[in-house]
C-alpha cells in the first residue's frame, strides 16, 4: 500500500477540483459561467479574510479598499504599461501585498476595534482618495479590458467561459498555496498569534512582524480578487468597492466558518446565490418590489444567525467531525 503525504493529497484534490470545474464550465450556460466567475472571485476574497481574521486574529472592516488597490494597480498595468492581463493580475496581488505590508507595519500595534476602525476609515476614504489622482479616472474610473479569448479555443468559446477559466484558475492556485502555507510552520505561528499573542511572544515569535506578514498576504489575495472583480465588470471605479462589499465578505467568511478554509467556495456561492434565490422565491410566491429588495438582506441575516448557532466553525469543520465519528 503506497502512502500518500497530506501535501500530495491536497494537491491531488485541487487538481481534481480543477478538472471538475473545467468539465462543469463546458456543461453550463453563459450566465452560470459568469456567476461561477463571481463565486471564484468572492471565494478568493473570503479566503483573504479567513487568513487575516480566522488564523492571525486581526479584524478588517475595510477589505474592499485593499481589493481596490489591487484593481487599480492591475488596470493601470494594462492601460499604461501595456502588460499582459495575466501579468496585470499578478501585479494587482503584488502591489496590494506591498500596500498591506506597509499598512500592516503601521498598524501592527493596533488590534481589535482599533484595527477594524483603521481599515474601515481606509474603505470610507477610498472615493475621495481615488478622486485626488486624475490617473485613476475619478468617479467614472478606468477600463480593465483583458480582451477576447485566444482564437485557438474556437469561435464558440465565450467571453464568460474565459472569465470563468481565469477566475477559477486564479482562485484554485491561490487557495492551494494558502492551504500549504497554513499547513506549514507559518500556519501554526499565525494560530499562536490569534490564540495568545503574549504566549507567542514569550515563545520567541516576533508578533508585530508576523502580523504584518499576515496582513500583507491577506492584502495580496484581496488585491488579486479585486483585479478579478474589475475584470468581470470591465472597469474599475471607486463605487465598485463600496463599504457594503467589505461587510458582504465578512458575512461570507462567517458562513464559511472563519477558522476554516475548506468552505470558501460555499461562502462565494452564498454571496452570488442569495439574490437569485430571493428573486425566485418572490416570483413564485409573489410580492411587492419592496419585498424583493429586502428579502436578500433578510435571508443573509437569517443564514448568519443559523451559521453562528449550528456551524460556528463552518460546514467544513462539520464534515471533519462527521468523518471522525465514523
Amino acid at each position, binding site marked *: 500500500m503506497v502512502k500518500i503525504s497530506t501535501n500530495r493529497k491536497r494537491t491531488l484534490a485541487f487538481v481534481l477540483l480543477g478538472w471538475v470545474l473545467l468539465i462543469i464550465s463546458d456543461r453550463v450556460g453563459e450566465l452560470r459561467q459568469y456567476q461561477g466567475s463571481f463565486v471564484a472571485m468572492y471565494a478568493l476574497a473570503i479566503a483573504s479574510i479567513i487568513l487575516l481574521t480566522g488564523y492571525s486574529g486581526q479584524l478588517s472592516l475595510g477589505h474592499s479598499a485593499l481589493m481596490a488597490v489591487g484593481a487599480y494597480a492591475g488596470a493601470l498595468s494594462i492601460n499604461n504599461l501595456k502588460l499582459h492581463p495575466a501579468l496585470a493580475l499578478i501585479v494587482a496581488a503584488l502591489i496590494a501585498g506591498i500596500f498591506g505590508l506597509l499598512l500592516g507595519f503601521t498598524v501592527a500595534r493596533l488590534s481589535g476595534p482599533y484595527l477594524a476602525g483603521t481599515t474601515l476609515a481606509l474603505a470610507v476614504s477610498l*472615493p475621495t482618495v481615488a478622486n485626488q489622482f486624475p490617473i485613476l479616472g475619478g*468617479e467614472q*474610473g478606468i477600463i480593465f*479590458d483583458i480582451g477576447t479569448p485566444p482564437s485557438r479555443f474556437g469561435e464558440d468559446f465565450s467571453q464568460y467561459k474565459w472569465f470563468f477559466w481565469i477566475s477559477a484558475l486564479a482562485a484554485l492556485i491561490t487557495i492551494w498555496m494558502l492551504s500549504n502555507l497554513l499547513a506549514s510552520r507559518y500556519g501554526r505561528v499565525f494560530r499562536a498569534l490569534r490564540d495568545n499573542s503574549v504566549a507567542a511572544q514569550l515563545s520567541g515569535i516576533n508578533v508585530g512582524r508576523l502580523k504584518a506578514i499576515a496582513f500583507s498576504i491577506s492584502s495580496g489575495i484581496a488585491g488579486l480578487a479585486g483585479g478579478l472583480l474589475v475584470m468581470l*465588470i470591465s472597469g474599475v*471605479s471607486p463605487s465598485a468597492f463600496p463599504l457594503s*462589499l467589505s461587510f458582504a465578505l465578512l458575512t461570507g467568511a462567517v458562513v464559511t466558518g472563519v477558522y476554516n478554509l475548506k468552505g470558501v467556495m460555499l461562502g462565494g456561492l452564498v454571496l452570488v446565490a442569495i439574490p437569485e434565490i430571493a428573486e425566485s422565491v418572490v416570483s413564485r410566491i409573489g410580492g411587492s*418590489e419592496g419585498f424583493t429588495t429586502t428579502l436578500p438582506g433578510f435571508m443573509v441575516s437569517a443564514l448568519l444567525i443559523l451559521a453562528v448557532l449550528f456551524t460556528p466553525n463552518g460546514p467544513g469543520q462539520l464534515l471533519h467531525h462527521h468523518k471522525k465519528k465514523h
Partner: protein
Amino acid sequence: MIRNTRMKRFSIVSAVATVGALVFSTLPAQAATPGVSAKEIKLGYSGPLTGSAGLVYGKLPGAMKAYFDHINANGGVYGRKIKLVSRDDKYLPTLAATQTTNLVLNDKVFALVGALGTATHSKAYTAAQLAKNNVPDLFVNTGFSGFANKAKYPTTFTILPSYAMEAKIMAKFIKDTPTLAPQASFLIAQDDEFGVDGVNGFALAGHKFTAAPTLYPQGALTPALAEGALTKLSAVPGKPVLVLFGTTDSTATILKAAEKLSLTTKFNWIAGSVGGDANTLLALGVKPSTINGALAASFFPDAKDATDPYVSEFMKINSKYNKGVSFDNVVLQGMNSAMLTVQALRAAGKNLTRAGLISAIESKGADFASAGLVPLNYSGTSRVGYNGYWFGQLNEKGELKPFGGKLTVYTTDSSSNSAPTASSYERKPVPKNGVPTNS
C-alpha cells in the same frame, strides 16, 4: 397476423418519421429573436430601486410599466403585450453589470430601456455584451456624451441632451441675462463624467468662472462640505451666480446648507436639469422659500403644469396604473421614454428584430411624438436624443415658469464652440389617449 400488425406499425412510424425529417430539413433555419413571441415583447430595466439614488430615481421603472400597462390595455404593439422586467443595481457598477447580464442571459429580454447612470451603465454595457448580441439599449438616462460614440456603443440611444450642451446653453443664458452677466460666477459640480462634461461645455462656450470649479465625488457631498464651500463664497461681493451641476440629492444638500447659514438669498442659484427637480428637492426637505426664484434648465414641460397636453395625458395614466405614486419629473421622464419605446417598436414593424428596431430609431426617431419641448436628434449618425434646453424660474410651489414669461428654446451640439441658437421647434401633438399609431 401479429407479425403483420407489428410490421404495419413499424412501416407507418418509419414513414411518418421520414416525412417529418424531410419536412423539417427543408424548413429554413430560423433563429428566434430573444424576448419576442407572438403575444409578448419582453423589455428590461436596470437601475437604482433602493439606496439614496433609488429614493430619487426609483419611480422610473414603475412609471414606464404604468405606461406599458396602458398600451397593453389598448391592444399592445401589433397585438403583442409589453412586459418590463426591472432589476435593482443600487447605483453600483458591479450590480449594474451582473443585473444587466441577468436581463440578457436569464430573463432573455428583447431590449433594454431607460437604464440610468453613467459609471454604472458604461460597465454594464460591456459586461453584458450588448454590442456583441446587438441588444438595443434604448433611451439611456444619461447626458454623458461618451455614449454617443457609435463605434463603442453601437446599440445605445441616449435620451437626455448631453451635459456639455446644457453647460453651453447655461453659459449663453448667463451672458444674455443683464442681472446675471455682471456678477461673479462659480460652479459646484460632481466629479465624474457628468460634472466633467459640464466643465468642458462651459469651456467650449468660453465662459470663465471667477474661481476654479469646486468638484466633489458622486454621493460624497456631505452637509459639512457644502457649508464649507458656501461659507467661502459668501464673502464675494454682490449676488454671485452659483451653478449647481450635480444630482438632485446633492443640490438639496447645498440648498439646505444655505438655509442653515442664512445664505439662500445671497446667490443667484442655477441648477442643472438633473439636479433641479423641484418636487424632489421639496421632498428632500428643502424649504419652498429657498427654491423660490432659483433658475433651472429643462427640456421637458413642467411636471406640475396640468394644462400641458402630454403632462395631462400622463397624469391620467399615472393615476390609473401607478396608484399612490405622485406625478413628478421622474414619472414624466419614465412615461415619455416608454412612449418613445412604443413608437420605436411600432416603427420596427410586425416582424420585430433587434437590428430592425435600431434601424427604425435611426430612420424615424427624430419624428416620434414626445413630451420634450426641444427636438429629438436621432439619425443614422446621431444617437443623442434631445439637443436643447429652455430656462425657467421656480416658484414656491415648485413650478418651473419660463424665465421672463416667454419660453425660449436653445439648441446646440456637444463638441463645437459654436454658440447655441434659439429654436422654433414645435413638438407633435400628443397621440390620442396617449396611444401612438405610427408605423
